[in-house]
């Protein structure tokens, strides 16, 4: 990116904010998915390209709409609607000029676009990049850290300031991985492995959401990227790598129930017999922020609601049919059993 645009962008950013947000207060926490306040290198590069394009667009808009409005105001029929004006058929030099003018403007934008594409390609490939395998499922996100030997869902922890190199795969239909404040989106396509990278400038929590229509609950396929300080990230990794502690009491009963009724067929919990791969890995479910890919905050009450009737919380999801039969089979003891499961799952910190 040419330095001058960087320079310009520093001054114009608030202006763009004003222009685009039309006076609405635009502090980042109000707009967790905005692209206009980038918080990472890759998103910033895009934003730097957006500046000149935006201002060119504004200029073109003002000039062309201005010409249009002016000619309507100036030449509207005032006296004799039947009067016949000068019958001008065209003006070739003028027309050639206004063919060339947009070509030049577009040529400049194209040049800037290509330099940004190259700049994104040239982002330093640090050797200590964190590798994450992102796997799309209808309708939740799985995050595998192959080097760290851990698997999680919905919350993607990364160390702030460090490059994250991710690969994108899908087990079913096409999804699209997008964290607006950190970078642009890339699709997850069955049979293809796409790659991308980003890094967060500062610690913080960034919202992401599936951006390619993927069926009934496409709207409810959210995730969060949580950028930790180096120390926090190390602590998180350590915790995620650990096995669940020994259980006692209700939590233990919950664990037995979990193993008995078939949850294990779809979910994995490390250190137990649960090795299912259909649903999210629950080994450290209690440490996550949301349930069912961002539909509900992860509280015991919400978890209870989810287990009692996942179909109501997120219609069409893959766990519904199983849960409906199970809860029906439990009859009167359903509440009790669900309490046990909640006890168990919340203990999986």
């Amino acid at each position, binding site marked *: 990116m040419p330095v001058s645009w960087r320079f310009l962008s520093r001054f114009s950013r608030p202006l763009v904010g004003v222009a*685009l947000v039309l006076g609405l207060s635009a502090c980042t926490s109000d707009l967790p998915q905005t692209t206009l306040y980038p918080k990472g290198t890759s998103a910033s590069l*895009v934003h730097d390209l*957006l500046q000149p394009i935006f201002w060119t667009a504004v200029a073109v808009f003002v000039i062309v709409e201005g010409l249009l409005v002016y000619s309507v105001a100036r030449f509207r029929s005032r006296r004799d609607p039947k009067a016949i004006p000068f019958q*001008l058929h065209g003006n070739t030099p003028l027309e050639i000029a206004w063919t060339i*003018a947009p070509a030049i403007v577009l040529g400049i934008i194209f040049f800037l676009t290509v330099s*940004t594409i190259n700049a994104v390609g040239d982002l330093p490939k640090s050797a200590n990049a964190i590798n994450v395998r992102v796997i799309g499922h209808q309708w939740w996100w799985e995050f595998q850290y192959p080097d760290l030997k851990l698997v999680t869902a919905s919350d993607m922890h990364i160390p702030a300031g460090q490059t994250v190199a991710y690969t994108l795969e899908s087990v079913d239909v*096409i999804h699209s991985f997008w964290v607006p404040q950190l970078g642009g989106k890339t699709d997850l396509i*069955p*049979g293809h492995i796409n790659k991308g990278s980003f890094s967060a400038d500062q610690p913080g929590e960034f919202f992401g959401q599936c*951006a390619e229509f993927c069926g009934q609950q496409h709207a409810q396929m959210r995730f969060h990227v949580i950028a930790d300080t180096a120390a926090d990230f190390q602590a998180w990794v350590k915790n995620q790598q650990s096995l669940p502690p020994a259980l006692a009491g209700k939590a233990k009963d919950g664990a037995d129930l979990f193993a008995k009724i078939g949850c294990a067929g779809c979910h994995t919990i490390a250190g137990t017999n649960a090795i299912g791969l259909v649903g999210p890995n629950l080994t450290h479910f209690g440490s996550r922020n949301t349930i069912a890919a961002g539909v509900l905050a992860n509280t015991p009450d919400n978890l209870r609601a989810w287990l009692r009737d996942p179909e109501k919380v997120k219609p069409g999801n893959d766990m519904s049919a199983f849960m409906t039969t199970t809860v029906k089979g439990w009859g009167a003891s359903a509440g009790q059993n669900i309490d046990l499961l909640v006890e168990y799952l919340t203990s999986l910190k």
Partner: protein
Amino acid sequence: MTTYVGSLHVTERRRYSLMDWVMTVDHKKIGILYIVTAFAFFLIGGIEAMLMRTQLAVSNNTFLNGELYNQIFTMHGTTMVFLAIMPLNVGFGNYIVPLMIGARDMAFPRLNAFSYWLFLFGGLFMYTSFVAGGAPNAGWFSYAPLTEAQFSPTHGMDYWVLGLQLIGIASLAGSVNFIVTILNMRAPGMNFNRLPLFVWMTLVTSFLLIFAFPSVTVAITLLFFDRQLGTNFYLAKMGGDPLLWQHLFWFFGHPEVYIMILPAMGIISEVLPTFARKPIFGYTFVAYSGVAIGFLGFTVWAHHMFAVGMPPIVNIAFSLSSMLIGVPTGVKIFNWIGTLWGGNLNLKTAMWFAIGFIAMFIIGGISGIFLAAPPVDFQITDTYFVVAHLHYVLFGGTILGLFAGFYYWIPKMTGRMLSEKLGMIHFWLVMTGFNLTFLPMHLLGFEGMPRRIYTYHDGMGWDIWNFIETIGVFTIALGVLVFLWNLWISLRAGEHAGNDPWDGATLEWKIPSPPASYNFAVIPVVHSRRPFWDEKYGGHDVTIPWHAEPSAGADGGEHHGRHFHMPSPSLYPAILAFGLLIVMFGLLYMKDLPALDPLPMNPLGIIAGVLVMAYAIAGWQGEVSAGK
């Protein structure tokens, strides 16, 4: 054989029976059928839009559930593209093109009727899905593998695929008809340098369609094989590739954008000069930029796919071609403004809509440049920014252009003027509502709101804009109601239009409103680009020499006896289309009916349809050989 005795100023004033409409092969009646049917579908698509906007008015809304919302947005897009905009263009083309080129009908009148019936049946067929187990729900772009049987097990997608086949055949037949008509049926002297721009754009559109539609025909045929016969064209696990669908679809889908907008550009290229009372500025540039757009339109399809992970060099190439296509588009805008410049602008409703087209299309063009830059596209593709962009092109552009066409040509079609007063209310309501609905979407896109989501959480900063947008869509609806009201009262008691209410330049204004079934008692001879204008005002024209009204005998004596042959009405086109409809139902349910040993399916429906088609073809052939 039906023989009409024509005289220049006689208009048939009779009420048509239902059978007259079903059997008609008159391009004008078929045009009206197209327009009325397509407008009905436009209203349905609009109702779907209102349902969606009601759901999205506030966060966490439960007015529609995800499944229903997805069906509705799929049918909204499909309806507006295939059942409203395209057939509205075809309807105006049908009515106006033969009049503009001084012809008595389309080249193939029966094929024309066949196209119409196929389009109607295709639309009804798709809508049957709502009551037959669920509408298609994978979006108008229907990305595989979501559309495969395992992810979309209802018959909705089958309805979509087979309905699109019907509509595709209708469109292809219609395009062939337009091309042959425009190439072969022009009045003497109507050379390509004099062809009205609406005819030019219809010609370009027809060629685009012929080259683009087969691509999606292949795509949906393969999808049907996958779904019903167990092939794996789009299934990665079995060696297929979902991206095949995207390439095939967008190879059609991008030219489709121009198929939808070029005719509307043609309309306003007629309306602007008429109401500016001067010729189009730079006729050749406008015509050839249309051709250029047509060619370039085939080189940009992958700009819909920047985010699928193509190598940077591919993205750069498609970025370049996409920006390139902005050049001929910009040229058109400048030429339209040049047409206004120095004119004596009669700001009638038709003119306002044409001006509105330019004003809104500028925005749609500019937002397109954002999307043509891949890095920016990575951020805003599949967000509401794209929804804004495409509606500024297709609503702000095409629909406003079509409304211009309505106000401009309805007097010709019906003999009645629409109310200007209601017209202005209609215009300003639609303009206000349109911008309320779609302007904030640009911002929502930048604020990260993805498309095609049936709900969103609060706290995203999206609430207020979504609420405003919902108000906007109901404002548009109010405007459209005013238009319907205008039609209702004006067609009964509107002012009489006379032949030439706007002091027009092209041939259709020379003949009565509505025209006689044979259009021209005497085929006119054309000496200039604005034959009728020059006939009226020859002296004012500075560059094109004035020619007198064609004198008797100038058209080779065809009018001497004033007898000419018009094709007679026929029921067979409708029957043929109906037969094809049965075939589609047969295909759709071939695996649901009890299988007929030894086949693994039941082909009876298909056979029944084929028999009906054979009967219709035989009857049709009989009429042709009998010289009707």
